[in-house]
């Protein structure tokens, strides 16, 4: 187990990157604390897998260093890093039995057979494949194969870190929950550093202690699920996390109020002068529809999501979503929206502006 430090790290797949747009992974400094469970969250193609492959040594970064417990491993081969990684699509050794598949990483490291057999049994129990150990891996279904891949990743006890690259994409929903619970339990029991790449926010928020949100090759925010929800540092985080995502409205800021099309919205906190592309962000959860309070909106649609209702509306020509309780009655006369002032965030050029008096 190790603390993983990324120092000045960046990567481009081009031999001679000209500008920042050529980088699949933009400059990044970060310490992955030993024994924490992280989720790397972002849309497809945002550089998540690139970052993961750099950590595991499958890719050598174009610049910067990777350190394990302070030791430079930037150019060390994968085998020396002692890392386990599970990929998006199942990788099994077709001609081997399930047992031999699970035993493969241990045997390659010269562990004795008694230990191997014991570990394989343990892992087989964990992934629920004890019955199938003597079967050949070929011809198994995609989720069985992926369970084997997961098992191979978990079979070594002494790994520095466990990396998962969207491992549950091909797995049935009910099995997903079960496996994710197993992974959490594994983390709890053995305290491995785990990095879990996903584009599914639920998966990220339930699995991880800390979520790293990536957008366009850049880490835009690292925080607990709570922080990501309450204080998205970047409009992308606001939009990507939450269902539906945060409402983003262009506005002008004057002290402790925001002005949209001449209408005032109280902000609850004061701001200094804000330049650039100025927007405010309010989560649909913190907007409230009523008949007499706030700004005028035009209702478009009400969707019943079961636990709550989602109201799609228009405010000064901008789309806006409002979440109302499951029992809330929504009548045609309810044409005004108000916001919870303390929950409104201000963004300049997509980055959150720290209000006066808040520790940065």
């Amino acid at each position, binding site marked *: 187990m190790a603390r993983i430090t990324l120092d000045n790290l960046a990567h481009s797949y081009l031999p001679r990157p000209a500008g920042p747009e050529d980088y699949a992974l933009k400059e990044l400094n970060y310490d992955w604390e030993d024994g924490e469970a992280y989720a790397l969250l972002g849309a497809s193609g945002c550089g998540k897998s690139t970052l993961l492959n750099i950590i595991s040594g499958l890719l050598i970064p174009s610049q910067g260093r990777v350190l394990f417990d302070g030791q430079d491993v930037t150019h060390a081969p994968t085998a020396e890093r002692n890392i386990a990684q599970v990929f998006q699509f199942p*990788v099994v050794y077709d001609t081997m039995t399930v047992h031999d598949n699970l035993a493969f990483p241990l045997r390659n490291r010269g562990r004795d057979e008694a230990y191997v057999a014991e570990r394989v049994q343990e892992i087989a129990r964990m992934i629920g494949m004890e019955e199938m150990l003597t079967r050949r891996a070929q011809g198994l279904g995609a989720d069985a194969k992926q369970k084997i891949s997961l098992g191979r990743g978990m079979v070594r006890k002494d790994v520095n870190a466990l990396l998962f690259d969207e491992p549950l994409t091909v797995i049935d929903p009910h099995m997903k929950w079960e496996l994710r619970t197993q992974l959490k339990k594994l983390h709890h029991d053995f305290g491995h550093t785990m990095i879990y790449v996903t584009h599914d926010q639920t998966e990220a928020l339930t699995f991880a202690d800390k979520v790293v949100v990536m957008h366009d090759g850049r880490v835009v925010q690292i925080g607990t699920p709570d922080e990501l929800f309450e204080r998205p540092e970047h409009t992308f985080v606001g939009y990507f996390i939450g269902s539906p995502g945060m409402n983003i409205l262009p506005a002008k800021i004057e002290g402790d109020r925001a002005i949209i099309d001449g209408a005032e919205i109280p902000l609850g906190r004061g701001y200094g002068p804000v330049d650039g592309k100025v927007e405010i962000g309010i989560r649909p959860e913190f907007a409230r529809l009523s008949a007499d309070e706030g700004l005028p909106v035009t209702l478009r649609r009400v969707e019943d999501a079961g636990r709550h209702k989602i109201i799609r509306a228009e405010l000064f020509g901008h789309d806006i979503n409002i979440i109302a309780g499951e029992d809330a009655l929504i009548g045609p006369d309810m044409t005004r929206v108000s916001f919870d002032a303390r929950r409104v965030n201000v963004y300049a050029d997509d980055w959150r502006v720290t209000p006066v008096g808040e520790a940065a």
Partner: protein
Amino acid sequence: MQQKTVNNKAWFLVLPVLLLVAFSAVIPLMTVVNYSVQDTFGNNVFFWAGLDWFREMLSDERMWDALQRQLFFSATILAIEVPLGIFVALNMPKSGFWSSFCLVLMSLPLLIPWNVVGTIWQIFGRVDIGLLGHTLDALGIDYNYTQNPVAAWATIIVMDVWHWTSLVALLAFAGLKSIPDAYYQAAKIDQASRWKVFRYIELPKMSGVLMIAILLRFMDSFMIYTEPFVVTGGGPGNATTLLSIDLVKMALGQFDLGPAAAFSIMYFLVILLISWVFYTVMTNLDKKGV
């Protein structure tokens, strides 16, 4: 088990193919069958001979000798071309300009007509003017494919390897290219050795195309005629008289139509049988995954 609907009318859909195959294969084959059970003294007059020709051929050592030489030839070129083809494929650049370059370069021998290949090697190996023959002779090696059976065999085997290893390599390369990167990455994570990567990832993934390669090479080599004929003419003596060379000698040289027809049919059956055995054994291996 699910109940399947049986509709025999579907067989009609096979008719066009059946017709085509009848004209391209069955009817010509039947004329050979026709010759094999009759005897003639010319003037288009035929007498019923029954299975006499077959009996005669089976008791004749000539066909057995040719069959032995043929089996030795096919086994040898398979034993060389398959491992060599895999080796070449493993060492080819996986992508980019050099990959295409290698592919084109390797395809070149495959594009050369058989008798041209034969002529190339015939000249190449000549002791008086051939680059290979003259060089070997100058080095003091006794090489003369027109007199020395070992030299003759070496020439036709090297020629076949030169001509056809590319096919095995190209097929193996196609098999290798279809392996997703994740397999190699996972193998690195699992700390698999180079040999294990080959044994547990590359070989199983190539097994399908390799089976096709082996079958193709076996059938082709078993029927080979032009190239060795152009180089050695079946000589020295009968040393390189393979089955088809022997057959042509019999049918066209001696005009023994009846025995040659019987020979042809048995030749055909042997190829069919060996191919079938190959196929069955290999698909079974594949299923059991030995």
